[in-house]
């Protein structure tokens, strides 16, 4: 019988620990498929964050580093400066990238560091049990915003793709979602484009992926995707935010 669906080679043959219906698994699969299609697993070095995807280092067949919370772009910079012929990517959540690691993210982009960031925006801290993230929406109920996030006292949600796109060092930044087949296909195309640009030495690339956390949103997997569509996409519009040839 012909096999029509199988595990990408770049994904290790181990069970993933993610909750049922969590979209981290989808994004892992997309990154692995892209590595397979570009045939780069043997030349890629990944950096896992602190967050639900901390064990990403066990899931990809390429060499991996585990970084401390928020520092993945700095770690990736160190790796890339040593092996500039390798493809270096980080995989980070919103707390990791947009709160504790904001400086590392902004400056990796400002330097035009030739790395790719896969940014999982699920509007919550998954791993620590559902606290407010820098990307939590106004009014969103979390463990640390039990009355709903009040921007006046708890700040406004950060749009990282837009913010980073203003930097001269940013080569390509796109926001995608993994809530539907159509969007998943677009997400994969964006990831592939980012890796390809890096291989061409073009500079800093980031794909922000709107992702779901059914467990901490307190929703079923299907309801979670509906919530993402109804609430996240209006605040975080999908699209290409920056695709420019770098000066100099």
């Amino acid at each position, binding site marked *: 019988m012909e096999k029509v669906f199988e595990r990408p080679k770049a994904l290790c043959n181990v069970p993933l620990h993610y909750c049922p219906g969590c979209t981290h698994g989808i994004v892992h699969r997309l990154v692995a498929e892209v590595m397979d299609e570009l045939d780069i*697993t*043997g*030349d*890629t*070095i990944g*950096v896992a964050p602190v967050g639900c995807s*901390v064990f990403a*280092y*066990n899931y*990809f*067949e*390429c*060499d*991996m*580093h*585990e*970084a*401390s919370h928020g*520092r993945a772009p*700095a*770690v*990736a*910079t*160190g*790796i*890339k*400066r*040593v*092996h500039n012929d*390798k493809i270096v990517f980080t995989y980070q959540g919103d707390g990791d990238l947009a709160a504790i690691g904001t*400086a*590392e993210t*902004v*400056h990796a982009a400002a330097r035009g560091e030739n790395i790719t960031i896969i940014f999982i925006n699920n509007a919550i801290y998954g791993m620590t049990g559902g606290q407010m993230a820098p990307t939590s929406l106004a009014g969103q109920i979390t463990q640390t915003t039990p009355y709903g996030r009040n921007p006046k006292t708890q700040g406004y949600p950060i749009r990282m793709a837009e913010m980073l796109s203003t930097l001269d060092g940013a080569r390509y930044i796109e926001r995608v979602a993994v809530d539907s087949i159509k969007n998943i296909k677009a997400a994969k195309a964006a990831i592939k484009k980012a890796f390809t640009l890096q291989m061409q030495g073009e500079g800093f690339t980031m794909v922000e992926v709107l992702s779901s956390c059914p467990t901490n949103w307190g929703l079923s997997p299907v309801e979670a995707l509906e919530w993402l569509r109804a609430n996240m996409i209006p605040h975080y519009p999908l699209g290409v935010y920056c695709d420019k040839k770098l000066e100099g």
Partner: protein
Amino acid sequence: MSDKVLMKGNEAIAEAAIQAGCRYFFGYPITPQTEVAAYMAKKMPKIGGVFLQAESEVSAINMVYGAAGAGARVMTSSSSPGISLKQEGISYIAGANLPCVIINIVRGGPGLGGIQPAQSDYFQATKGGGHGDYHLVVFAPASIQEMVDLTSNAFDVADKYRTPVMIIGDGMLGQMMEPVTFQSKETASLPEKPWATTGTKGKREHNIINSLYLNPEDLEKNILERQERYNTIKANEVRYEAVGVEDADYVLVAYGMTARIAKNAMATLRKQGIKVGLIRPITLWPFPTEIFEKTAKTAKAFLSVEMSMGQMVEDVRLAVNGACPVHFYGRTGGMVPTPDEIINEVKKIGGVL
């Protein structure tokens, strides 16, 4: 290069690192170590190396973590407040068993403190600094030549034991000039690092640089394995200088620049007929315990002299283990003890004053 050249301490460290095969430097500006970075910024691009000014010490040390895991000889340098920021990264580097060299040109603290020389980061350097069960190997040079030699040695020790190594100096050592000789090294002889992330090329299992072990049995095993390496370091790498301790009634203990001042005081006291010796720990960790045990059998008292409120003195007491009294004299906040002050202290202890 084996001719004598006149060099500033901070620049000599940088040159010694380059000659030891270090091609990656990540740092953030802070007084009084800026010349290390400035030298690297000038030299690295010319020899195919990387100098990168990071956005913070936090980033710099994490770049070091990345580069060390990727298999490179890598260094960062800073001064006290910056070293505080690096502690998280240092703990991860130790936890992931990565080699690197960290320079701390110590200034007065706590807080923003001052920019004058100090030795008040002894606890931070030798007792952890960051979280968890780990140690740094800590070298404390007392001259620029020794700074050069120890920098070179630091990279070898780091690679051999897969551990971060710290070189601790102070603003005086960093800024002053002395003639030095470089023993040029074969960079070709750098050790293999089969554990490094260099890309699998499809030829091996993936390498993982990591310090996370959620299963306590695994974490304990990992820590015990590292402890074994620490025991080997304690057996092989202890360094100290001992002068005049055989017949000494009073033994001065000091490291770095303070040891040079103490030596001066010792010479004066000897001329006055007071038998004084000096132990100068060169490795602050591992601490040279044995020479203290030995000397404590014949000495009447020890005097630890430091540019702090008394930090190394605790290790001296542990090493002497009650065999005779251990006294302390220190200046702090950027104040430097003078030979006269030390002479007075010894006389007080000896009941001569």
